[in-house]
């Protein structure tokens, strides 16, 4: 079962929930946790496992071969992203703008733009007890997060045996990286906080996930700040609220030190167990 932990707003506690939930679940089951917030992955801070794998991920971009080129301009004409430009007697490739669609390369009549791999980021795997943890990290300066996220998901599908739960720490926002991280998930857990920023960004996230036709549940963090409007929104939209975690300085301090919350804070542990009970129910119902 694939569970994506997402939120419109950043800093609502996605990573805190993902790491604590995955490690709590791994006490009794086989679990995978993937950090797909590839621009700024942070789950690794909380993981104490041994590194089991490390590999470079690449994406393909066209490489101009001057000798073969007839300067017909077809490549520049077909590229929708202005990543291939014809300047006088030169074909200029701008890798940052390239979406790796292969159109220029495969439509070139003389094969003068073969695709070559360019580094995109790193994938690192760790084992901690019954948890397999994967961290995917985009190289600084790379603009495209979505291809790295998609490759990480393919890696999990192809290389890892199926765990009972696969948790994903997703990027914030509602744009293409979030779509890439959630599109094949069985459930999206939306993490929010009870402030107008949290609520507004939750509304955007719900709108996005509805377009993808996803099942959703909500987790509210930092309860005690803000107001109760988020609960009214969830009720109106018929979104189940699976856990409400209190606003406690202790939680913020543990997080700041890279420590787990649930061994120290009982209310937090109870909330996690409530979420896991719901996930079990769903899993059993689907089997």
């Amino acid at each position, binding site marked *: 079962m694939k569970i994506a932990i997402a939120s419109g707003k*950043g800093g609502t506690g996605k990573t805190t929930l993902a790491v604590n939930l995955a490690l709590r679940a791994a006490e009794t089951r086989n679990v995978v946790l993937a950090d797909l917030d590839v621009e700024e992955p942070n789950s690794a801070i909380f993981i104490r496992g041994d590194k089991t794998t490390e590999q470079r991920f690449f994406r393909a971009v066209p490489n101009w071969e001057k000798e073969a080129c007839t300067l017909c301009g077809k490549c520049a004409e077909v590229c929708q992203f202005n990543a291939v430009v014809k300047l006088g007697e030169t074909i200029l490739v701008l890798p940052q703008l390239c979406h790796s669609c292969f159109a220029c390369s495969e439509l070139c009549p003389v094969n003068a733009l073969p695709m070559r791999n360019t580094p995109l980021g790193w994938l690192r795997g760790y084992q901690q007890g019954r948890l397999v943890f994967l961290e995917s990290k985009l190289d600084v300066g790379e603009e495209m997060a979505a291809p790295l996220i998609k490759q990480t998901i393919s890696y999990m599908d192809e290389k890892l045996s199926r765990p009972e739960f696969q948790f994903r720490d997703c990027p914030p926002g509602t744009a293409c990286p979030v779509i890439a991280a959630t599109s094949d998930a069985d459930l999206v857990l939306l993490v929010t906080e009870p402030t107008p920023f949290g609520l507004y960004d939750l509304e955007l996230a719900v709108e996005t996930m509805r377009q993808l036709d996803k099942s959703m549940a909500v987790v509210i963090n930092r309860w005690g*700040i803000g107001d109760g409007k988020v609960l009214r929104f969830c009720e109106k939209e018929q979104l189940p609220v699976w856990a409400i975690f209190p606003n406690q300085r202790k939680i913020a301090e543990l997080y700041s030190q890279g420590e787990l919350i649930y061994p120290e804070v009982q209310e937090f542990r109870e909330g996690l167990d409530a979420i896991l009970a719901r996930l079990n129910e769903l899993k059993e119902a689907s089997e």
Partner: protein
Amino acid sequence: MKEIVIISGKGGTGKTSVAAALATIASQTVMADCDVDAADLHLILKPDTRQSEAFFSGVKAVIDPDKCSACGLCEAICRFGAISHQGMHYAVDRLACEGCGYCHHICPVDAISLPEQQVGHSYISHTKLGSQLVHAKLEAGADNSGKLVAKVKKDAKELALKTGMDYVWVDGSPGIGCPVISSLSGADFVLLVTEPTLSGLGDMQRVHQLVEQFKIPAGCLINKADINPEVTDRIKDFIQEKGILLVDEIPYDEDFPHAITLGQSLVEFNPAKWRPRFDRIWQIVCKELT
């Protein structure tokens, strides 16, 4: 005219609260909210929209079922898994399609068109403070956020020039990807808002690598500074080593969520406490720009 970008790497460090507080005291300033897929500044600045413009960018493939001969070539070449067999012909998954147009070029019966996409709106507004705000809303799930950021910045700069403003302040998005790269381009100064958590530090270091690539001078504001004094010291060591200006250290303060909840900036919420502080931050940044 100078452009200042507020970013953090990590979300939830208080970027928008800082931007809203600065907007309250700033004169001669156009604000630009470039966190286009989760823009929140308008929730505080309560803009009265004067101009709204649909934003078109990129294309998506559409297959005409009457023309499609179901040869399957488009599905075979699509690198995004966006085309699949549906009933008697092929169809495009709009959310998976990246609009590369390869299928359009390769279709033997000319059944695939590439209509331009409306991916959001951009707005020019007057805030409740009487200042000007340029902001935007990306359609849910749309790509092209970097291009919408570029549009917001361009509109903000033009507006500043036209109305004789000295500064454009940009509220950026979290991360280090295309919207952040787009918000950094052409900036004169970067204000990094961070927090003393291991994530906050790590994320700021990564986004600062990007700032260094752009060779933009930077300052750092440490929010919630007393949450973890040891990490606060590590942030200070880092910024000293990198020649980043320490702009301020703000202790953990529940005025941040309280003010947001009332739809106010910190300076409106408690002027006696916050106005002098943000006046000072403003002066420090402006001094760096001259």
